[in-house]
């Protein structure tokens, strides 16, 4: 949908009721400076010529879009096209150089493995720490604790330090926490591929449930099948630009086309 469909209060009509905008990116740009030398000696030797040793790299250029509540949106694109950077900007982890991101509602991010786990603490301690990071109070965590452990299916290891966990166990626990903090917006970056098949199915079921409950899901994925099955909107990125914004099947087609160039 185009911006002109929005009413002044930033809502759009979807499925018979007003669906508010929850994430708004306005002209977001992100530049990375790649410095090739790092040590003092190299800096002194190259002093004055250091401009030559700096490379600019625009990970995102003038990206603007709005996401309304209840949408599942897929960010797709080739490696290095800016998907993960965009997700991090949306999550407030990286500040853009230009433009801004506005959002509302509770946000949970599942970026890479076990975000925020401390290797020396036990699973139990990490559950409390992680839920607190994601915005739960201690009392709420007490309430959800059993349910988190049940979902992750790693009850017998919950009092083991997480440095002894396998990567699958990490992801199980991280995912279980993220889905229990009652997020309005869930950011998912390629993490679902790690668990075994039954767990992946469980995650998919949970995501479907989330969709029913009107939560907004933003996911980065290289799996066209997954994107087509879950997303009702796809943003295709290429070299930091949004080259397509629309329905999932068309988005996948646009992605394939961009690979051929």
């Amino acid at each position, binding site marked *: 949908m185009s911006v002109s469909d929005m009413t002044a209060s930033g809502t759009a009509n979807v499925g018979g009721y007003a669906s*508010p905008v929850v994430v708004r990116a306005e002209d977001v740009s992100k530049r990375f400076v790649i410095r090739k030398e790092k040590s003092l000696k190299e800096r002194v030797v190259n002093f004055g010529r250091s401009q030559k040793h700096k490379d600019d790299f625009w990970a995102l250029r003038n990206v603007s879009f709005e996401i309304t509540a209840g949408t599942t949106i897929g960010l797709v694109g080739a490696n290095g096209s800016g998907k993960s950077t965009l997700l991090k900007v949306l999550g407030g982890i990286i500040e853009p150089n230009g433009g801004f991101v506005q959002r509302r509602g509770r946000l949970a*991010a599942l970026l*890479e493995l076990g*975000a925020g*786990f401390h290797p020396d603490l036990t699973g139990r301690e990490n559950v409390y720490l992680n839920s607190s990071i994601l915005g739960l109070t201690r009392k709420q965590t007490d309430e959800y604790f059993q349910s988190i452990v049940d979902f992750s299916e790693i009850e017998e290891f919950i009092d083991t330090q997480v440095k002894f966990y396998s990567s699958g166990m990490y992801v199980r626990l991280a995912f279980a926490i993220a889905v229990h903090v009652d997020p309005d917006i869930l950011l998912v970056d390629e993490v679902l591929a790690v668990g075994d098949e039954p767990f992946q199915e469980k995650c998919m079921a949970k995501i479907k449930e989330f969709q029913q409950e*009107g939560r907004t899901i933003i996911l980065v994925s290289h799996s066209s099948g997954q994107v087509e099955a879950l997303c009702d909107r796809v943003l295709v990125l290429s070299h930091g630009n949004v080259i397509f914004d629309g329905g999932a099947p068309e988005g996948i087609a646009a992605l394939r086309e961009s690979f051929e160039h």
Partner: protein
Amino acid sequence: MTTVAQERAERLAELPFEVSVSAGPKSVGGFVASIREIAAHRQLLDLLIRRELKSRYKDSSLGFVWSLVKPLVQLLIYYVFIGTVLQASRGVPDFAIFVFSGLTLWGLYSETISTGTASIISNGGLIKKVYLPREIFPLASTGSAIFNFLVQMVVLLLAIIVLGQFPVSWNLLYVPVAVAVVLIWGVTFAVLLSALNVFLRDIQYLVEVVMLLLFWASPIVYSWSFVVKAVGSHTWLLDVYLLNPISLAILAFQRGLWQAGSQTRVIDTNVIPPQPWPADMNLMLGGAIVVGLVALFFAQRIFSRLQGNFAQEI
């Protein structure tokens, strides 16, 4: 009939849009916004402090005892070698209390700064993956430094009581003021240096060296009267010495807890007059607090400017 999704949509429509703090208001408004954000995360701060304390001595059987061993060994070294062998204790009554009170307060300062400086880097895993007010990491290091300080403080007070030297006087009020000065300046440097350390990793090594220097630039193992004597007629040097807020705080702390320093004592046949405490100490302490708060404000503003790039630099 309203569905779950509809209820959620209605609730979300009511919420105001948030922008991240560094994109928000600048200067004083931004400072207040940051403080508010940190206050909203105080439960997390509490958990992070616990995590820091727990993980430090994880898997060691003595655990917390180790945090006491280092200052006690330091005390022993200074007591035996500086106090007895070099005979400093002949000019400083109750030398053990004197040294340990200085070491305790210095420990708070140096631990706040050295662990604070490394805090952003060592929590890189979190910073790269979730948004939190990042000031929370140097503050968590400060929290664990405060915990260790309190443990040492208990030992110090016990020792003072056992030796029958408990200073019941108005001078005790210097203790909280001294701690406040140390905390304000400690947090200021921890916040500032933790941010700079992300971009220039040399900072954390530099800090170690500078802290070593500063230790000897404060009256911890030698008393204030030694300084006054050494300076002689160049009294302006004393003012320079006291420009360091930590020297001042340590003096105030000793004035509060080290009773013998404010009395005339006799060691062997040596008559030792009370310490010549600086005349306008109260004023200077007030100044150290006010200037410290201003410095803290600027440190937080610099931190706030730099934090946008943390996630990509770590």
